[in-house]
């Protein structure tokens, strides 16, 4: 021990401490401080963030309406609009799902097995739920009048099917818009999805959001594109029963309709699509 240390011990510690040999009392911490393990404030931060990012119609960002401002503002506005529309869509889907579930429960409790009875019952007793239910019939014209005409015009389908060029039609179909199309799941890794048929209301990157007609309640369903094959039909003429049938391989279709328009698709190894040919 060097000289400075002895000086400290003899002159300073003896004056102010009870035991100059042991300047630091080892039990001191246990007596006074109760140390709990912490996560460095992670939970509180996460909670704060979750509260902020929780999407509902209340925290929609206000979009300024004035057009005279500069382009910078227009861009900002656009970003706000697209973000808001995303929020609104998510809100719509989740509220539809929630209400459909409530509806089914009500129907089960009151032993209603008829669609008309259920709707009249809801109108009387639960008008809020009734109003927010999605209506399949409202979307049928979107398929019948909008999408069918669009796709027939796009593919140039005429009465003379012999002159129809199949390969260019496939190319056009890969770039077409499927909002409003009537799709049916034919093959899927998830066996419970097989057979679902509905009208597409939104074609997102990884999902088709479809509205599905049910025996009691019309439901909104998000069908993942991964591992699923969809089928659609294009009628050739109104009075005839014949139609052209095509399938969409969801695994290779995972792009938004906006990105798909100018896209050059590439063939890949198809080891992941074994479910398509297996029974």
């Amino acid at each position: 021990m060097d000289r400075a240390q002895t000086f400290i011990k003899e002159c300073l510690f003896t004056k102010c401490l009870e035991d100059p040999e042991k300047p630091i009392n080892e039990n001191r911490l246990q007596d006074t401080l109760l140390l709990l393990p912490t996560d460095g404030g992670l939970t509180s931060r996460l909670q704060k963030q979750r509260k902020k990012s929780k999407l509902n119609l209340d925290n929609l960002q206000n979009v300024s309406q004035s057009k005279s401002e500069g382009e910078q503002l227009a861009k900002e506005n656009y970003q706000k609009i697209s973000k808001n529309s995303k929020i609104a869509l998510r809100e719509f889907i989740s509220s539809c799902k929630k209400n459909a579930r409530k509806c089914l429960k009500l129907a089960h409790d009151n032993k209603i097995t008829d669609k008309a009875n259920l709707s009249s019952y809801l109108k009387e007793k639960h008008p809020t739920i009734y109003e927010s239910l999605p209506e399949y019939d409202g979307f049928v014209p979107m398929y019948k009048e909008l999408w069918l005409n669009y796709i027939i015009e796009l593919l140039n389908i005429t009465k003379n099917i012999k002159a129809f060029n199949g390969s260019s039609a496939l190319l056009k179909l890969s770039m077409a818009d499927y909002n409003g199309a009537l799709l049916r799941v034919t093959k899927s890794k998830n066996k419970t999805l097989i057979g679902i048929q509905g009208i597409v209301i939104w074609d997102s990157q990884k999902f088709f959001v479809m509205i599905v007609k049910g025996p009691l309640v019309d439901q909104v369903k998000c069908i993942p594109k991964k591992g699923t094959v969809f089928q659609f039909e294009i009628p050739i003429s109104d009075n005839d029963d014949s139609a052209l049938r095509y399938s969409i391989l969801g695994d290779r279709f995972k792009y938004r309709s906006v990105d798909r328009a100018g896209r050059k698709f590439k063939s890949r190894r198809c080891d992941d699509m074994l479910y398509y040919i297996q029974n």
Partner: protein
Amino acid sequence: MLVDLNVPWPQSSYMEKVTPQAINNLTKTLTTLHTLGYTHIAINFTVSHSEKFPNDVKMLNPIDIKKRFGELMARTGLKLYSRITLIIDDPSKGQSLSKISQAFDVVAALPISEKGLTLSTTNLDIDLLTFQYGSRLPTFLKHKSICSCVNRGVKLEIVYGYALRDVQSRRQFVSNVRSVIRSSRFRGIVIGSGAMSPLECRNILGVTSLIKNLGLPSDKCSKAMGDLASLVLLNGRLRNKSHKQTIVAGGGEEDDNDVVNDVQGIDDNQTVKLVKRTMDPEQLGHAAKRHKP
């Protein structure tokens, strides 16, 4: 599904004529394969890459499956596909594959020189890589080139027909198969028969035990004749019947309505499928509920 990807077509160039005798022999081979339990069979037309190909797309495929074997397919439930195997010797003389591949379901390459092997493992747009198992391999197979080829989606084919011929080809077969299995690290191997006559057909149990004894794990053996081989068919069919694997002509909820099993329904020239309408917006959304009265 049990798949045989290699039943030779009795013609080795476009110049040769096909005799009815040879067709009859082929039909017998097909019926024997059917008896042994095969469901999907590809008829293999082997031709040199430097051969003069006819200009017309319709003339490219000498195997007229619908006309020649349509009745056999309907009666037995066999599914027949056409396959072309290009013998690649000198890459500079070859033609572009895009036109040839339009006429066939499956495209395979058979390199007989080192240059041909490098070309077919790197650039060519093929489904299958096969070798002449009866004679020496063109070069030592390297892990790197074969594995990169397998990662691209190309499968390696083993033809067991050579094991049933004379002693010399059997010997060569064993050593070649061992080197193919080693270089591919057990991945992406499919097995075909290459049966010239009905006597060279064997069922899955026998072939599995043969290849198992040559060093391939047994689970890979049974996959080699089922799942992986059907993936080759899927890859080949999607090339012609779809736009870059996105939208496919045909479809349906029944099991035999996908692009591989639907041999008859899809129009070859127009790539469309005409059906009666089954989808109606007034239907209920789920099949299980839809069928209820």
